[in-house]
């Protein structure tokens, strides 16, 4: 609906789309690039590309899959250009829970972020889409343009690697 409104000349429709997806795209980009500045560049670039290519969006697909894919590709391209990211900024995520829990979980959070940073961008993105954005296998498949079996196998590999990294560091998740 919003895409159609935008293509029909409604000047505020694209702004509503930006409102809806700015945070999500920024977080995906942040997890892939590991840098706030790069994530901002990626998010901006993804919205510009989406706006330019809006007429090519196929409404039989979900908009979030389409725009996530643009952002993820932008993030991958940026990390390839700059070389693999060296890890995630430990301050870039928060922890759910009450203040007492925060202290005891701080170390786990820090280690988890470091371990996530050691995953390849391809592995990291499936973990982020699954656990941070709560997408289903099918939604991840649509977003990444791969089949569900591939999503499952990539996610399995990513989680195994994550656990290995944590175990190697003596962290029991």
């Amino acid at each position, binding site marked *: 609906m919003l895409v159609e409104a935008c293509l029909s000349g409604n000047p505020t429709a694209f702004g509503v789309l930006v409102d809806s997806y700015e945070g999500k795209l920024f977080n995906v980009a942040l997890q892939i690039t590991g840098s706030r500045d790069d994530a901002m560049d990626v998010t901006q670039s993804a919205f510009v590309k989406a706006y330019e290519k809006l007429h090519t969006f196929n409404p039989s697909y979900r908009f979030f899959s389409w725009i996530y894919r643009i952002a993820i590709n932008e993030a991958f391209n940026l990390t390839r250009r700059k070389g693999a990211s060296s890890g995630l900024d430990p301050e870039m995520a928060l922890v759910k829970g009450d203040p007492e829990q925060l202290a005891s979980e701080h170390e786990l959070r820090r280690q*988890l972020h470091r371990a996530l940073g050691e995953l390849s961008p391809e592995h990291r993105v499936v973990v982020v889409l699954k656990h941070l954005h709560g997408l289903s296998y099918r939604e991840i498949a649509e977003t990444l343009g791969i089949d569900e079996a591939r999503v499952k196998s990539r996610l399995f590999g990513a989680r195994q690697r994550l*656990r290995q990294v944590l175990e190697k560091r003596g962290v029991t*998740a």
Partner: protein
Amino acid sequence: MTDQDLERLAWERLDGSISGEDDARLDALLAADSSASLRFEAIQELARGLSMVVPVSPPAELRPRIDRAVAATSPRWRRPIVRVGVWGPRLAYLAAGLVAGAVAVRLLLPVPVLDRDLASGAMITGSARPTAALELDLGGGGTLAMWRNGAFVNLDLSVQASHQVEVILEARPGSLSIERVTLGGGPGAEAAADGAAVRIRTTGPGRCAIALSRDGEESGIVVRVASDGVFLAEREVRPEELGVHR
């Protein structure tokens, strides 16, 4: 069952995608093997740890950056493209954008009747408009009437909105040219032909009558409407819709 199988089943259960049969297999394994049970608990803890990661708010400066970058782009779909469109649904935006200033007061001045020498390209004005003229409703912001008159296509554009309205007519390149423009009143309107397109711009309520000459009539004319630079609606007018008036 290998460690890999256990891990796969554990994640499938935690993801909620495990089959009934595998679920039962996993339960049996966890009940029978304490090391498998410990491994499952470790995986559960990892899943819990991942669930603690929550999105962060984007920096405040990001949104204005996006807005500026988007505003600076000129996507292909916003540039003039000749295509058959649907007038109706898009007019909702015209209504939203234009009707606000278009109160019921009619500010239009009468258009002088100049319907004397059609063959020479003189104007047919609103008052001389045939009843069979095609009238396009600009969503309450005005109307555009079109009709054929021999070798000419006559337009009677009546705008009530206080915004700038632009009407663009496109046909086969080089086939449209302006014969005459008569402004009927209001703050102003201008018309210009540039190759394949004739552009009429109004800057407020008013009326404008235009005679176009056509070189060939086999193709339709695409009418596009914009307000304050924002594309609003598009419709292709087929030759047979313009009728014949002599």
